């Protein structure tokens, strides 16, 4: 019982710590070549399914919000 209570407390502390951490951490480095396979179709993507499909032209990826 004591072990269960201790574990629950520890888990709670870890979860609370993660919630307080920044959403973003290090991020991609300039000079790296990220790889990603999209799980859902991209709107207006005309069948592009991965970052690799976008090669051959420069790609600007803009992160924004609707709120």
């Amino acid at each position, binding site marked *: 019982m004591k072990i269960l209570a201790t574990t629950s407390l520890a888990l709670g502390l870890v979860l609370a710590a993660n919630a307080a951490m920044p959403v*973003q951490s290090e991020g991609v480095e300039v000079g790296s070549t990220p790889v990603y396979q999209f799980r859902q179709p991209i709107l207006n993507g005309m069948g592009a399914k991965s970052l690799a499909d976008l090669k051959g*032209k420069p790609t600007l990826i803009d992160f924004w919000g609707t709120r």
Partner: protein
Amino acid sequence: MSEEYGDAVNVLFVEVQGADDAKVERFALEKKWLGTHAMWTTERPLNVGLRGIPNFALLDSSGEVILKGYSTKLHSQIEELVAAEVKAASKGPKDLPKSLKKAYKAFHKGDLAKGIAEADKVAAKGGDDADAATALAAELRQRASGKVDRIQWMVDHGFVVEAGDLLSDLKKGLSGEEALEARVEQLRATLDSPEMKPEMEAAKLFAKAEATLFDKGLKAKGIDRKLAKIAEKYQGTQSAKRAQHLLELMKG
């Protein structure tokens, strides 16, 4: 950027505040932001490492990150780099050996088979650039195959007018690459088949209605009736599904 450079630049907008795809699409429709080459997603393909938005990552033609940061702060740098990258796109990656520039340039111009053949030629010669040439030939083949895959996707999802436009250029560019040529022939045959006639008709009408909606926004007069007519008359086609989807989006 998408308006200025057309399809010479990929622009991908990533919504990161938890909206779903329908909300993003409706938002963009309301703002009249659709109708360009820009793409939209709610999936993060990479992490820039910043908290505030808007932020961005700029990738060169080989997919390498060349700049990242806050979009408003680095706006002029983005513009300069994009202009430079559009110009440099035909030359290939910076570390591409001189012997392979011709191959890359041909491929970029649309002579896909010629580009691949040139890379194969350099590979066959042996020497210092042989490995790079083999890798380039493989990459160009993959990219050429990717182009055919995307046209297949367009045909499967009702973008048949767009697919038809791209197929003619692709057929010319792939002359000599037998396997891919065969796929292009098959796609052409599919588009020209009698079974495709309703889809083609629907797609042409839908393209007109969609263009009006994107131009005038949700208040476009009579657009809901046009879309409803397409959805009804061409039931079973992909364009009818797309029309129905827009109608639902317009209802909110």
